[in-house]
């Protein structure tokens, strides 16, 4: 399956990308698996506070990902 990770604010500063597509060989792959891979790739993520949104819904659960899912990494909000 193919999934997209989106990066915002402070996080996009160190990923140097605002979006990345990943092709996953396994059929069983969760948000936690993705975050573990990303923390390997971007060590700064380990000291960054953020929440994740799967297909625009914020979630704190460990969800199984499907083909075409969009996972956003969102640092603290600062509207207003």
């Amino acid at each position, binding site marked *: 399956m193919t999934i997209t990770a989106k990066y915002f604010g402070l996080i996009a500063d160190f990923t140097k990308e605002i979006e990345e597509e990943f092709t996953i060989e396994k059929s069983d792959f969760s948000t936690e698996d993705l975050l573990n891979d990303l923390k390997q790739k971007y060590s700064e993520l380990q000291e960054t506070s953020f929440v994740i*949104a799967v297909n*625009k819904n914020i979630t704190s659960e460990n969800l199984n990902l499907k083909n075409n899912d969009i996972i*956003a990494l*969102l*640092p*603290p*909000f*600062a*509207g*207003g």
Partner: protein
Amino acid sequence: MEKKTIKKSFTQGAIAAEFIGNSIAKHQNKTSIGAHNIFLGQVRADEIEGKIVSAIEYSAYEEMAEQSFYEIREAAFEKYDLTCLHIYHSLGLVKTGEICLFVFVSAPRRKVVYKALEFLVEEIKEKVAIFGKEIFEDETYTWKKNS
């Protein structure tokens, strides 16, 4: 057939005082309204570790944020007896002294507008995926966090 479109809340750059005046003027034909309440967020020239903020550059997860604005707006109509409400938030660069958030509620009677406005502003601060880069006079920056 009319398609229901989600009203957009984001606007490019600062929100002009004149735009706010015009929004108020547009409500003067709604003669069931007795009270308006308006919140404006203005960019402060804060001092952070000896450096002065000169602007905030706003970015957002736009598709998600517009959906959040929509949900917050619907929740306010559900909770409070409002005639209308409007939310505008800046994207891009907003200099100190300029306005980055404009929330406008109107109702037949006043008691409800205070609560509705506070609800809206607090929800926007907490739930909308907006990010702000506080840019200093020397062009370095830091990422803003809401308190």
